[in-house]
């Protein structure tokens, strides 16, 4: 375990070093985040006039959802895209072999190899938006609600990671599958809005098949006191389930890789 921890510190140390090689990126990233967030807020505002709600959610409540979405988007930029996107490159250039020959778990290596600080401002802004929206919506912060949000964010992050990793792992067969992650991203964009804004059939889809609901809507509901402990544990169970599926699929993919690749 100590070896994994030490490796992780080295991984992220080098990642930050790489970023420092390209300072301009940080600036561009900041600009992109600012533009993107103001665009999203503008779009959201189009749904709200005087006395209007979106699926029964007030403006402040919808801001909470938007804030959570922004956090997860930042998570994708910081963690998922740089790491899981590199899997395709590894497969295409044959450098996956180097990873497989290291005496360390290959999923650990591929999932945590790097970190892009460029997404951190987005996470910060998202948390800020969440806090502001909660405040406006009259949420009273307690230690337990703070703890709940943290757990929900972790569970959501794990679900997001597992989905993303599942798709990235298919590159063992199809090599160029980063388009599939684009499909995932497009579908995840539905998490920008409260679940109730969608027609019933889509609500079902976003809860059971592609659990976007557990990323943004459910945590917001828990904070608002509209959903209770069972929802929280459902989210956690789902996270564990998805992670187990991702792990099993990776082991299966490796078996295929080692028996069929050339």
């Amino acid at each position, binding site marked *: 375990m100590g070896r994994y921890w030490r490796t992780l510190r080295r991984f992220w140390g080098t990642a930050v070093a790489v970023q420092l090689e390209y300072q*301009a*990126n940080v600036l*561009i990233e900041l*600009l*992109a985040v600012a*533009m*993107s967030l103001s*665009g999203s807020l*503008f*779009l959201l505002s*189009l*749904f*709200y*006039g005087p006395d*209007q*709600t*979106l*699926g029964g959610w007030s403006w402040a409540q919808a801001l909470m959802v938007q804030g959570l979405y922004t956090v997860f988007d930042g998570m994708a930029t910081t963690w998922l895209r740089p790491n899981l996107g590199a899997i395709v490159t590894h497969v295409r250039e044959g450098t996956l072999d180097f990873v497989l020959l290291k005496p360390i778990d290959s999923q650990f290596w591929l999932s945590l190899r790097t970190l892009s600080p460029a997404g951190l401002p987005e996470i910060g802004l998202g948390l800020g938006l969440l806090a502001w929206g909660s405040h406006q919506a009259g949420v009273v912060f307690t230690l337990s609600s703070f703890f709940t949000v943290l757990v929900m964010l972790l569970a959501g992050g794990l679900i997001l990671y597992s989905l993303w990793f599942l798709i990235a792992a298919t590159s063992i067969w*199809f090599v*160029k*599958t980063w*388009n*599939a992650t*684009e*499909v995932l*991203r*497009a*579908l995840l*964009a*539905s998490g920008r*809005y409260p679940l109730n*804004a*969608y*027609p019933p059939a*889509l609500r079902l889809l976003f809860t059971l098949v592609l659990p976007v609901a557990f990323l943004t809507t459910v945590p917001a509901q828990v904070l608002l006191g509209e959903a209770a402990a069972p929802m929280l544990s459902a989210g956690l169970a789902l996270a564990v389930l998805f992670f187990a599926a991702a792990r099993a699929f990776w082991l299966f993919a490796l078996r295929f890789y080692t028996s069929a690749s050339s």
Partner: protein
Amino acid sequence: MRIFGLNRRIIRVLLGSQYAHMLEYRAEIALWALSGVLPFIMLSVWSGSDARSGLGLDGVALDRYFLSAFLVRQFSVVWVVYAFEEDALLGRLSPYLLQPLHPLWRYVAAHLGEQLTRLPFAALIAAVFFAVRPQAFWLPSLGGFLLAWLATWLAFAIAFLFQSLIAALCFWSEKASALERLQFIPFLFLSGLLAPLTAFPPVLRVLAQWTPFPYLIDFPARILAGQPVDLLAGFGAQLAWIALLLPLVLLLWRAGVRRYSAMGA
């Protein structure tokens, strides 16, 4: 006759080979087509929202608008800057520059080949949409369809030229493709892909009309959906943007190629 090194035979060979090449990537392209579902997600939010009444698109008109926006987007997606960047990185660019054919034609052919490959997938998605919402089904008039087609092609031309401009900047800076990311954000919000322009506050709507973005999605999509549009103003704006961008692209490319060969990279 040759225009920018192009003649009939070259067009045929180029299109044929690029189509065959793109067919090799059909799985990828199917996924690309699928990743364009954003308009449908937005449609479902708009349909159930209180703000819908302000759109001026009642009944099935909203369904048709977003389906049209999806289709227009499918056939005006441009990725020349990424292809160019990869070619430059892998050293494929130098041989292209030696050929008596403007390298941009190669990318144009690749895009057309890709659109042809994409056609069945886009049609399939549209068919699924109609199966879910049969009441939205419509067939545009032949004239309307041809006009929409023309408008989509012009939209493609604007997007292509715009991105070629960014690609040309790659001759100077490695970071040029980041500009593409930055311009994509206003495109997303101002083109009409996520919300019809009629949803915008009047001031912003006027402002948006001075950017090229509404002519990339909103204008062609409205023609296709059978909405009343000012054809003259729309096509006029599209042609004006092309007239502005084309000489810029050609000049910048020539300067870029000169710089590239001078550096001997």
